């Protein structure tokens, strides 16, 4: 079997380094223009990248978790990622479009139909990055419930019961939302539309199903108003950093994004994912794919890359830190790291360009060819959907009435 490795690009603002917008080729005054995003996605598409993701949140960006800061030297403001991805879709043909949609405050019914619609508009290249919104200031936008301030350190340490309970509530709700979306996607069988003139029926109502979901924070009756999308089920991506999210991803996602700092850390994460698999029931249709995450800044030498990073930090008057590893290096060394992850059994990587478009261009023109030369980017040449491109099958429809097989027909004819 050919070793296969997949590549995603995480798009956000002018890049992931907070000072990236000040780079000479950055276009910070175009961040709210569709044309800017189409340009970026087309760079990735022509390089043969499998998918792009779009960052989003329920509230304004902020340096900390506590609330909105008053920094005016960082990019602030974002387009709704799902609407942005859907508007890009008519401009692309063979790259996955995976917007972030938060599940905490959004209606699961709207999430289900909106992600299905992205799949229709992109004709089978839609995905969804599931994200919870754990910030108190975001909850204040809805006013329906109040949150304690999320403390990521306490969550990871698992020492504060209130924090653990909050995380469990948020991710439980996210898991329910994914479940509702998947049921809604399945709620129409294929061929439910019959256009039968003699009986006057447009629809075969027996092929459309109530989902009757009842969870702790909502109930959804169904069926979807939107018929089953082209991929059957759009690709579900979940970023995860610790036990509770690992369990959500293991139960419900198609792809989990993990954030190893080094090889030892990667080993621990894979162990924790294996533990999660022992305690949850997987409801997603295919085995979980594991992708790593990395911030990437590429120059011609490691020294130059490190120097640029230092320069950006100086401009920003703070050292840039990330939840995942920062690769400020040559294209060859970045490619070598990706190959090492591939050799360790990971299925792909989501790269976060430190600077846009600079690092996206470097990835496209330098890293991708190195991986291709190493023979790990083998793809089905005729993949017509994102699922097919990622080697994921079309999920069976849970509601589909099995068609009688030839044997059944013979059997019933005899009886």
């Amino acid at each position, binding site marked *: 079997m050919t070793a296969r490795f997949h590549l995603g690009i995480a798009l956000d603002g002018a890049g992931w380094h907070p000072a990236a917008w000040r780079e000479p080729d950055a276009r910070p005054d175009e961040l709210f223009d569709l044309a800017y995003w189409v340009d970026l996605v087309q760079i990735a598409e022509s390089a043969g990248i499998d998918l792009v993701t779009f960052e989003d949140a329920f509230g304004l960006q902020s340096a900390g978790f506590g609330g909105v800061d008053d920094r005016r030297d960082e990019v602030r403001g974002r387009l709704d990622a799902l609407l942005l991805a859907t508007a890009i879709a008519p401009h692309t043909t063979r790259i996955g479009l995976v917007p972030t949609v938060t599940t905490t405050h959004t209606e*699961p019914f709207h999430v289900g139909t909106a992600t299905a619609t992205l799949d229709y*508009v992109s004709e089978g290249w839609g995905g969804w990055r599931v994200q919870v919104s754990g910030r108190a200031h975001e909850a204040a936008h*809805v006013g329906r419930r109040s949150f304690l301030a999320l403390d990521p350190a306490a969550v990871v340490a698992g020492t504060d019961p209130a924090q653990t309970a909050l995380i469990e509530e948020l991710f439980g709700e996210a898991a329910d939302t994914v479940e509702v979306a998947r049921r809604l996607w399945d709620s129409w069988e294929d061929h439910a539309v019959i256009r039968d003139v003699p009986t006057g029926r447009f*629809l075969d109502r027996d092929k459309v199903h109530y989902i009757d979901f009842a969870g702790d924070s909502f*109930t959804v009756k169904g*069926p979807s108003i939107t018929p089953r999308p082209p991929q059957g089920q759009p690709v579900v991506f979940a970023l995860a950093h610790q036990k509770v999210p690992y369990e959500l991803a293991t139960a419900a996602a198609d792809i989990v994004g993990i954030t190893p700092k080094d090889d030892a850390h990667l080993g621990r994460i894979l162990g924790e994912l294996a533990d999660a698999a022992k305690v949850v029931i997987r409801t997603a249709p295919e085995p979980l794919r594991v992708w790593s995450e990395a911030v990437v800044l590429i120059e011609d030498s490691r020294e130059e890359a490190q120097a640029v990073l230092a320069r950006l930090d100086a401009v920003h008057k703070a050292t840039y830190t990330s939840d995942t590893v920062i690769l400020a290096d040559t294209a060859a060394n970045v490619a070598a790291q990706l190959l090492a992850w591939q050799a360790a059994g990971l299925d792909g990587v989501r790269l976060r360009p430190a600077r846009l478009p600079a690092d996206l261009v470097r990835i496209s023109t330098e890293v991708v060819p190195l991986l291709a030369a190493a023979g790990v980017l083998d793809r089905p040449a005729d993949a017509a959907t994102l699922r097919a491109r990622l080697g994921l099958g079309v999920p069976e429809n849970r509601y589909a009435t099995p068609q009688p097989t030839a044997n059944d027909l013979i059997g019933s004819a005899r009886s």
Partner: protein
Amino acid sequence: MTLTSATTAPTRTERPIKQVHLAAHFPGVNNTTVWRDSNQASQIAFSSFRHFAQNAERGKFDFLFLAEGLRLREHKGLIHDLDVVGRPNTLAVLAGIAAVTEHIGLVGTLSTTFNEPYELARQLASLDQISLGRAGWNIVTTSDAFHGENFRRGAYLDRGDRYTRAEEFVEVARRLWDAWAPDAITADKATGEFLAADALGHVDHHGPQFDVTGFATLPRSPQGSPVIVQAGDSADGRDFASRTAEVIFSLHSGFEDGQAFYSDVKGRLAAVGRHRDSLKILPAATFILGDTEADARERSRETALLQVSPQTAIAFLEQVWGTDLGGYDPDGPLPDIDPVTSDEGVTRGRVRHGADPAVIAKGWRELAEAEGLSIRDLVIRFAAKHTFVGTPVQVAETINRYVQEDASDGFVIVGSTNPTGLDEFVDHVIPELQERGVYRTDYEPGATLRQTLGLPV
């Protein structure tokens, strides 16, 4: 023909020629989309939306319009299977359409009951940015236990509370749309200032319906805010519209009826300090064209029979009678039994216009007897009567007469097939309107939807 000739009407106040405004209604979930027609394509595939939108833009329509229903309709306790069923998510498909059009407005129907203001305001602002100022929002207050079963909010919001919620909803949305200063983003690479000082207004709203505190996440759109459209018809709805809306999508497509509605609603504007031209009234209208008037009538009859199948005729009657009429012959006379009244009705998920079923049934029976109508004939009369039937010249002149004589400011036009149903309107009626000087021959470059509609900016 216009009314401006001062010599023939010296006593009439001189009035400028009004321009006709047109919206294109995507024919989706309803019984009037002829799904049996061979030109009928998917109402979900994006290719249909692309064709529809690009054709409407070719016809220089002010905006295209999408209706919304958040649950599949039911009839007699089962999913209704006779009409076209299934639609995409309104906002998402409008974002896709934004990418394949340049000038036409993008108006979606979105319920205030099953959305939250912070989120919807943000989504509409995003659509307005992506489309460079072409977004509009048809505010509906649809609310009943039936739709509620798909949402967190759950069951029911009382009729009286719906517009209370809608009004406060729009107020919050407006505050969010206005929260960023017009030149908030400076993005000055040299100084390192991305946001100007005090560029972000903090929204702090505490009302009976909503508590919304925080910062909006988007700069002001090229349009400032999406155009507000309203489609309710009750007194509450009209009051709400006169305070809040910039366009009304009305059901009053008859001439006298249209004039009455027009003067009623425009008459409410002065009291709230608004100019008459700040609100456009566009009734829904269907059309059938022909080479001659007789030809058009013939086509109208044929189309109506396709729109109202025998099964649809019976189902339509069952909505009023409230009981199973499966045993009746659609080509025979109306049932002589009396309607069964219930609070629920047999049909769920449709807008209901709450008259007394016994009164309706009696009126229909009398009409059918007087004119010798079968069940199907009668249903065609009520459910598939075409607003404009005639040659392109006749239809254009009728539309123009409505507008010049204040029965409307234009129309929301819906074709009977999808997505090509408006093609012939664009080919044949639009040039007639243009020739009469009452309809644009091109869009203003870079115009926002509000500018295209001729609304105060």
